[in-house]
């Protein structure tokens, strides 16, 4: 797949647990971070095969993970925060990105719903298409019909394999080398951990790498952890109440 992963494995072998990794500082709110932190896009790439665009994760987990990704974007943009299972709006200035704008508008307009889980469920119902749209508009993916007859569906195939593989490769390498993570990577690591994507991300890595990931996420900012805990519960709940419809 990606040569970077092979190199990372060698590092992982010599990985020795060192001092607790210092907690990275929150990404400051501002225009610069808004442009870079399209966390849902990066998570979308991580959840799909970088060549074929086929999903690596089951539907409900993927949908809720992307919904959480959109919420993290707004949190990093300083617009909302999470407290004890509820979303609180801090700043209703419209974000530049249309999708962030759309989500923030909805949250601000329907403040009778504050539970993070309600928003994960609501955004989860449309997040996949919306994030894919945003990525298509940015030229990151292109839609392609796949499957035959009744199994026909749209795949979003990455336009550039390297761009698509980059998020996973970078995160995987950082984790396997026992490094600390910046805000974006920390959010991605948390999303991976709570959607059960971590098995793919850390395929073949030692248990120490997984506990490193877990520790980083556990030491992150309380609002992020609060959101991720709800994500984990929603994904687990979907497993428990699943029915083939």
């Amino acid at each position: 797949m990606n040569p970077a992963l092979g190199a990372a494995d060698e590092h992982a072998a010599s990985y020795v647990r060192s001092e607790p990794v210092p907690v990275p500082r929150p990404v400051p709110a501002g225009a610069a971070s808004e442009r870079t932190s399209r966390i849902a896009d990066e998570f979308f790439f991580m959840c799909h095969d970088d060549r074929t665009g086929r999903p690596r994760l089951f539907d409900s987990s993927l949908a809720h993970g992307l919904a959480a990704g959109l919420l993290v974007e707004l949190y990093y943009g300083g617009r909302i925060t999470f407290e004890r299972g509820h979303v609180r709006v801090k700043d209703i200035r419209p974000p530049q990105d249309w999708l962030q704008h759309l989500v923030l508008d909805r949250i601000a307009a329907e403040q009778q719903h504050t539970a993070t889980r309600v928003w994960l469920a609501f955004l989860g119902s449309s997040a996949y298409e919306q994030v894919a749209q945003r990525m298509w508009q940015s030229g990151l993916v292109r839609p392609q019909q796949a499957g035959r007859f009744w199994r026909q569906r749209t795949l979003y195939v990455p336009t550039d394999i390297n761009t698509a593989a980059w998020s996973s490769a970078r995160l995987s390498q950082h984790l396997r080398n026992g490094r600390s993570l910046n805000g974006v990577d920390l959010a991605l690591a948390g999303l991976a951990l709570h959607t059960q994507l971590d098995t793919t991300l850390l395929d073949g890595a030692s248990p120490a790498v997984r506990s490193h990931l877990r520790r980083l996420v556990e030491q992150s900012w309380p609002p992020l952890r609060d959101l991720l805990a709800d994500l984990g519960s929603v994904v687990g709940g979907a497993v428990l109440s699943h029915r083939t419809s």
Partner: protein
Amino acid sequence: MSHSTTDTVSEVLARGRLGIPSVVFFVIAAAAPLTVVAGGATTGYAVTGVAGIPVAYLVVAAVLALFSVGFVAMSRRIVNAGAFYTYVTRGLGRPAGVGAAMVALVAYNAMQIGLYGGFGAVLATFLRDQYGLHVTWWVPALIGWAVVAVLGVLRIDLNGKVLAVMLVAECAVALVFDAVMVGHPAGGTVTFDTLAPSHILAAGIGAALVTAITGFVGFEGTVVFSEETRDPRRTVARATYIAVAATGLLYGLSAWAMSVATGPDRIVDAARTDGTDLIFNLVSPHLGSSIVTVGRVLFITSLFAALLSFHHTVARYLFALGRERVLPGVLGRTSRRTGAPKVGSILQSILAVVVLIAYATAGADPIVHLFFWVTVTGGLGVLILMTVTSAAVIGFFARIAHGEGWWLAFVAPLLATLTLTGFLAATLREFDILLGVDAHSPLRWLFPATYAIAALAGTAWALVLRATRPQVYDAIGLGADSATAPLRRTDSFRLPV
């Protein structure tokens, strides 16, 4: 801040919500009515030798309705409402909760694995009669096992529409059979002997009651849907009562109709001679062979639906316990591609195949020794769970502030606890009759003892967790919600320690 009057969120989330009929369908279909009518009731007559099976079904339905009053009310107030051990944790404390979880694991595994005996034997008979194929019971049982194992890992359960069609067909066939049997009574007169309330006090009724309870296992599944219904307050409660009433009446009616067709004094002997063929043999002189064949096929498909349903139940229990880390965390992982609780599913399949191979090697009877013995042992486990859960409902409502009336929060659960305790005592006293073994046989203690061991092991493990891993201990009973436990300790309901 703008406050809109529209509520898109509620509208979107309301899509695909379940109404009463869907919940009833899911639950009754999982209980597999034809399995109970053609398999459970007939084998119950044969093994226990008790003629009061029909009245036992009706009595049990009434008691389960009473049990449901507090159970459903409590289900609205807790997370992870699909599992009995959550109720026990909330009402009686975490050590009792883990004890209940272990009992539940044994019970649902017993239900599932026992059904393979019925499935294998009934399918083998069907293949012999219809196509002249001679196979031993464990061949079709193992094929069924393989299909369930694969569907389990792929997280495929039976489609709601398929289940609904099967359920309607099963009920229609059972009702037609009942009408035919009542229309052709033995000796020309319809008698109501097997419905006489006097059977309740007769010898062997404990065995009959647990046989009846076994037929209802699965009805408790309504509460799993509480978060997905249009109106959680009413839908789940009504669906539960409808499911219990409908199945109770169908079981009681069918078991009684069989006794009418054979004559109440001959029903036990007839069941011993014909086994699971009894109902089909009774109606075949009066009905076209095609409808009887349809009945036989539906019997097999209903057994399969029940097998698959209990397989998923066990896998999800293991998943919830793995999520809480009460059991190894690996059980709380899902298959990446399908989202199936993979490890739990595989574990259940391994256990089932080991038991199947053991039975096949020992040459034991698939219907009596596997289907009946093991599923009624599962029924006993569910009876234990319901008894303890009822007590837990009282404990729960005594501890929280609530607006429910006395009937719902105290009287109904208390009556249910007392009645179920009485059932439990009668069942344990008559377990030899239930198994059809000698009163001094060690087997009569061996099966119930499994639950005592499971409960003690679970309780002891909870105490070990309290001493060594307090974080895990705190999350007991939260199931998939355990991820939020370290962050929001005070949010959850007040728990007894």
